[in-house]
């Protein structure tokens, strides 16, 4: 049970990473195609829900972890911040009809890079587990 939960939790985190990298390409000036953006949105949505659901399930499943541990609370806060930044970035990136690069405004770019920052911080918390 533990290994299955861990696998789906980590797989969901990789989905988030895939979406974040695709959006990084958009923000850096790559063509924004409708299908590619849709794939990124699906990966971000499934990854976000998966990391949260399987992460909480893992915390409840393992006797050495408690849902109110400091590092788990910190991870949940970072998840909310990353999701909020991601939603703002998604709104600002709309596909061009001819597969060309689109102009990304500064607020959208800032929201995206904040998403990357929160996501990396989340990874740091997951690896080091401070206080666990």
């Amino acid at each position, binding site marked *: 049970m*533990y*290994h*299955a939960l*861990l*696998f789906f939790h*980590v*797989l969901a*985190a*990789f989905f988030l*990473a*895939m979406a*974040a*990298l*695709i959006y*990084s*390409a958009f923000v850096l000036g*790559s*063509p924004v*195609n409708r*299908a*590619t953006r849709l*794939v990124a949105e699906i*990966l971000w949505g499934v990854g976000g829900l998966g990391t949260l659901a399987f992460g909480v399930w893992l915390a409840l499943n*393992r006797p*050495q972890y408690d849902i109110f541990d400091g590092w788990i609370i910190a991870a949940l806060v970072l998840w909310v911040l990353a999701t909020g930044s991601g939603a703002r970035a998604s709104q600002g990136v709309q596909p061009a009809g001819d*597969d*060309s690069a689109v102009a990304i405004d500064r607020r959208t770019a800032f929201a995206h890079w904040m998403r990357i920052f929160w996501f*990396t911080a989340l*990874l*740091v918390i997951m*690896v*080091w587990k401070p206080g666990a």
Partner: protein
Amino acid sequence: MSVLTTLASITRDDSWDLPLFVHILGAMVLVGGLALSATSLIVAWRSGSAALTKLGFMSLFCGALPGYIVMRAGAQWIAHKEGLDNDDVDLTWVNIGFSVSDLGFVLLLVSLVIGGIAVRRINRGEGGAPSLSARIAAGLVSLFLVASLVAVWAMTVKPT
């Protein structure tokens, strides 16, 4: 052995943390680059977009390749630290990880070469539709992406 590896994964030494972080961060950049490349090349396959063919190649060169190097460096760091790089060690999950990594590197290099040829043809104006080489690259990149997710399974479930 299964119990030992499970315990190791739960109560690992703190000195593992930095190499593990490097390994996972590299792996995430790698699969992100592969996902962007595969999606772009598959869409280009259908639409004939030269811009997406170029994006497919550039995401391999600027995303997947650097990610692979960082992922592999982190893997070697951990393996050396824990003595898992000895010939005596025969753990299935370690073998799967190194096999996917080695085979994946070959797939990545071949995709980069034939993707580069496809981009060169586009830059020379030799036809608007993606070439056969771009389609082969799409297949190879997709294969490496699936194999990478199998490696994620092996690293977390740790089958022995």
